[in-house]
């Protein structure tokens, strides 16, 4: 079996297995672990919890720059690479084809030059994020190995993808295999590290929103 067949076949299959297992496992623990009931009565004027939770999810989507501008970089940069990733994953024709072959739906793709630009910007943005993490004393102190691994497995498919379309690895078959394998690594790591935020972020925001609302905090 050549590398490409391995990457597209068993490797991808295995990674998807690990991914599905990991994600459902962690979500199940989160959702099935009984929580201590909050027995306090809700504050006056508090919204019903689901609404408060939902509102918090949307409220936090809107960037909020601190008056001192201290979080300016992390906020903007965070948006840049998240949006960049979305454009690449959901806008590039080959990616749409993969999604179509799994979920059966497809949508129009973006021209390649848009993807190339998004790729360049996203890579730059991720590198900037790492530089920030390494140079800011506070960020550095609270960073764990998880952060660095999560960063690496996120940027890896971008870089291998760039090498693939830019023909920096020859032949194409090998380049494609390497790109798929880097995605395989990402899939395997995702449920077990901080990248799991992709699934948990809205749950935790909703819960925080509901909790604070219950306590009468002004948001």
């Amino acid at each position: 079996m050549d590398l490409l067949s391995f990457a597209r076949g068993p490797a991808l299959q295995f990674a998807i297995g690990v991914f599905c297992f990991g994600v459902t496992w962690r979500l199940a623990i989160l959702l099935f672990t009984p929580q201590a009931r909050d027995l306090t009565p809700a504050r006056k004027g508090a919204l019903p919890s689901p609404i408060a939770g939902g509102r918090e999810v949307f409220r936090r989507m809107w960037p909020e720059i601190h008056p001192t501008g201290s979080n300016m970089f992390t906020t903007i940069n965070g948006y840049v690479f998240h949006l960049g990733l979305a454009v690449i994953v959901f806008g590039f024709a080959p990616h749409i084809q993969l999604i179509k072959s799994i979920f059966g739906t497809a949508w129009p793709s973006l021209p390649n030059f848009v993807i190339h630009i998004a790729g360049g910007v996203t890579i730059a943005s991720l590198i900037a994020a790492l530089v920030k993490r390494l140079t800011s004393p506070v960020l550095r102190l609270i960073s764990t190995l998880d952060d660095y691994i999560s960063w690496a497995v996120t940027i890896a498919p971008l870089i291998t993808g760039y090498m693939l379309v830019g023909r920096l690895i020859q032949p194409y078959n090998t380049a494609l295999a390497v790109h798929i394998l880097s995605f395989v690594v990402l899939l395997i790591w995702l449920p077990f590290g901080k990248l799991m935020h992709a699934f948990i972020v809205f749950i935790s925001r909703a819960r925080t929103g509901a909790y604070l609302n219950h306590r009468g905090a002004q948001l």
Partner: protein
Amino acid sequence: MTKDRTLGEHMSRRGISRRAFGKYCAYLASTMALSPKMAPAMAQGLAAARRQAVIWLSFQECTGCTESFTRSYSPTLEDLIFDFISLDYHHTLQAASGEAAELAREQSMEENKGKYIVVVDGSVPTKDGGVYSMIAGHTNVDILASTIENAFAVVAVGTCAAFGGLPYAKPNPTGAVAISELVGNKPLINIPGCPPVPEAMTGTIAHILAFGSLPELDDKHRPLAFFGESIHDRCYRRSFYERGLFAKSFDDEGARKGWCLYEVGCKGPIAYNTCATTKWNGGTSFPIQSGHTCFACGSPNFWDQGGFYKSLPSRTSSIGTVAGATAAAGVALGAGAALIAANRKKQYSKET
């Protein structure tokens, strides 16, 4: 014996001048992307060479490679290759049969020890002692081993010989293997394709004749001159690919406008071959130009790439079952763990 004469002498007896060599080599240099300055030296080498003894072995194959080989395009120019080589053994083309045919093979091997070229088409079955393909009572494995022993080089033509091809496709009932598995360190050239482009076969042989050495090969033993670039890299529909203009089916507006065939299953990006430049049938066309996808017939495992009409990035293995089963296991384990924890907590609070 005519074999003692140089090709130059041989041809001039037939009224073919040295200009024909010059023209042939100009053509060869051009198709092989060699510097045109090399053409005169090649012509010189070719004229001074002896007629090349070629033994053609056909194993698990469909004879498509031979059909292709004999259709090298121009009846005058390209046909010269048949004057340059002496095809001493070839099931389909030789007049002799039975004992006489086998004798011709042995005789040529004896006379041209260390100098003859063995061309192989078809893969070799190895399962059950190799009984699935036998010639004159001998297995393909044995015939190959004895024939290449004193050969100068082995040329595996067609994807079956080069990479196993169709017989090798799942579930490979005969235990077929590519020729590369059986040649040890004999010099090997692979010219894959189903069938290979005729010019790639004749060009490679002519190159050996003119230079007395193998052409430059890639890591899969393919001549770089013909297999150095992918179909996608030389495809005239490439600009549509870049612009994201794809045919969604073979009869839609996009297909009529000649847009890229990526989404209907084109494997051009992983297909290393010369079809897009050399083309077929005397430069008439090639599959993509005729409106069909490329299915990478010259690539290893092309038959098992998940389907000719499934796009290249499509999954090649079933994912649904794996995803479902692992997700179920995840939920069960996660929920189980959560409940156990809850139980323990209850017990703990009871105890205290």
